[in-house]
C-alpha cells in the first residue's frame, strides 16, 4: 500500500537524521536501530499497559531513549573511530537480546496492541525535526559541532567541552530515533525484537552516506530514494541488499561525498568581504 511505503520512508528519514546529527560531531553510530527499539517499546508499554495517551507517550519515549544514550554514551564516547563504531554495533545486539529475553517486553513474541500513529503524525514529526536541523545549521552550535568533527582536540583547547557536546549530539540522535520507533510501533500495531535487527542500523547509515553527510537534505534524499526505489521497482525487492551494495560502490566511485555534498555555512560576512 502506498500509505505503508510513505510511512516507512518517513520513519527512515527520521532515522537517517538521527545518524546525521551524531555524525556532525564525527561519530558514526550503528546503534540507531537500538534507540528506535527503545523508543518503540517504551512508548508501546506506556500506551498499552498504563493507558498513557499516545501523544504524551511519544515525548516520554524520546526522553527515555536519550537518557539511555547518555548512560551508554558517557563511557563509550571517550573512545574514538572504529572502536566507538564497534561499541554501537554491540549496543544494537544487546538491546535486541534484552528485548527477546525479558518477559516484561513480551520476549521473542513481541509487543502488540499499539495504535494511533498516522501519516499526519509522522509528517509533523519530520517537519519539526527538519525545522530544528535547519535552525541548527544557521546557529553557532553548528560551528561548534563541525569544529569538534574537524579536530576535536583543537576545538577543546578553544574552550569547548567535548564530552558534553558529543553526548548532546548522541542523546539528540537517540531522541530522534526514539521518536521514529514510537511512531513505527504505533503504526504497525505489533512489533517483535527482530524488527530492530542490526541491518536496520546498517541500512540507515548507508542512507546517510549515499545521500550526503554535509547537510540535512542529504539524509532526507538518501532515505527517500533507497526506501522507495526497491518498493516501486518490484524486481529489485529480493535484490535489496545487492542493489544497496552496488549503489554504495557506484557512489564511492562517482560521488564519494554523497548525492548532496554541499555544506551550509553557519554565518557569512556580507559586508566588504569581496575585496579590500
Amino acid at each position, binding site marked *: 500500500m502506498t500509505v505503508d511505503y510513505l510511512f516507512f520512508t518517513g520513519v527512515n528519514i527520521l532515522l537517517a537524521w538521527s545518524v546525521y546529527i551524531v555524525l556532525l560531531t564525527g561519530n558514526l553510530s550503528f546503534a540507531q536501530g537500538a534507540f528506535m527499539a527503545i523508543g518503540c517499546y517504551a512508548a508501546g508499554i506506556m500506551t498499552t499497559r498504563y493507558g498513557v495517551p499516545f501523544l504524551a507517550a511519544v515525548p516520554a519515549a524520546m526522553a527515555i531513549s536519550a537518557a539511555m544514550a547518555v548512560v551508554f554514551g558517557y563511557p563509550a564516547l571517550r573512545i574514538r573511530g572504529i572502536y566507538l563504531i564497534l561499541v554501537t554495533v554491540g549496543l544494537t545486539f544487546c538491546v535486541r537480546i534484552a528485548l527477546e529475553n525479558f518477559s516484561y517486553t513480551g520476549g521473542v513474541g513481541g509487543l502488540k496492541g499499539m495504535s494511533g500513529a498516522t501519516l499526519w503524525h509522522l509528517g509533523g514529526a519530520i517537519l519539526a525535526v527538519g525545522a530544528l536541523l535547519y535552525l541548527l545549521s544557521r546557529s553557532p552550535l553548528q560551528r561548534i559541532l563541525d569544529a569538534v568533527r574537524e579536530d576535536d582536540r583543537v576545538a577543546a583547547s*578553544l574552550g569547548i567541552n567535548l564530552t558534553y557536546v558529543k553526548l548532546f549530539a548522541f542523546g539528540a540522535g537517540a531522541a530522534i530515533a526514539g521518536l521514529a520507533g514510537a511512531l513505527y510501533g504505533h503504526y504497525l500495531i505489533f512489533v517483535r525484537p527482530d524488527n530492530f535487527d542490526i541491518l536496520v542500523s546498517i541500512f540507515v547509515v548507508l542512507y546517510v552516506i549515499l545521500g550526503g553527510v554535509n547537510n540535512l537534505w542529504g539524509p532526507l534524499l538518501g532515505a527517500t530514494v533507497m526506501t522507495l526505489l526497491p518498493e516501486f521497482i518490484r524486481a529489485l525487492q529480493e535484490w535489496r541488499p545487492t542493489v544497496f551494495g552496488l549503489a554504495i560502490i557506484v557512489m564511492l566511485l562517482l560521488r564519494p561525498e554523497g548525492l548532496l555534498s554541499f555544506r551550509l555555512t553557519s*554565518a557569512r560576512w556580507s559586508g566588504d568581504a569581496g575585496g579590500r
Partner: protein
Amino acid sequence: MPAGAEPAAPVLEVSELSKQFDGLRAVDGVSFTVLPGEILGIIGPNGAGKTVLINLVSGFYPATSGRVRLLGEDLSGLALHQIGRRGIARTFQNIRLFKRMTVLENVLVSDQRHARRPIRAFFAFGRQRAEIEKARRFIELMGLTARANQLAGTLPYGEARRLEIARALATEPALLLLDEPAAGMNEEETAELIADVRKARKLVMAVVLIEHDMSLIQALSDRVIAMDYGKVMAEGLPAAVLADPEVQRAYLGEEGDP
C-alpha cells in the same frame, strides 16, 4: 593589556615540569615564569622538548610531574577545555585549522559566549551580527578580510598561519603560545609575521614563542630560554643567550655548521 593580576605577578609560572614518554624524559624539571607584557622566546635544537613543553602548558599532554600556574591558578589536572577557558590559547607547528569551515567560521568557533554554552548557542540562530562584528576585528588584524568567506583549507601557507593566530586571539586569552610560527616561511613572510605578532601581543597579557628562526627570536623576544635534552640550558636577554657557548655548541652540533 587586559586587566587582572598586579603588574609584578607572573602571567605564567612553570615549576619543575616533567614529561616522561616510555624511556624518554622529553621535558625534565623545567621551571620559568612569564611576566605581564612580555614575549618569552624558547629556542633549542630539534628534539629539545620545546613542543612537548607547549603541549604540557596548554594541556594537550598531562604532565608526569610539576606544576603550571596561570595568573596564580594551578592548572594541574584540568581538562583541555578548562585550560582554554582559563585563558591559554595556542597555534600549532603543523597548522591545525578547521579546514572544511570558512575563515570567518574558524574565528567564530572561538567566541567564548557560545563555546562555553553549546546548547544555548543553538538558540542564537539567525541573529549573529554581534559575533561576526567581533570576529571581524581579529580577521582584519591578521589581514584576512578578503578571505573571510573562503574555506580555511584553501588558504596559502602564510595566511593559514595568520588564521591560526586570529583564531587563538578570538578566545581573548591571557597567554598566547606560538609554536614555530615561522616554520616554512621565507624572509618576506617572516618579516610580515613579526609585524603580526607585534599586533597580537597588544591583545594578550603575554606571549610564549617557540622558534628556530633566530631573526624572529631576536626581533620579538624580551627574554629567551634555551633548551636541550628537555632541560633549560640558558636563560636571559636574547643576545646573551644566543652568545652562550653551550647554546652555540647545541646548535652547531646539530647543524654541523662551522
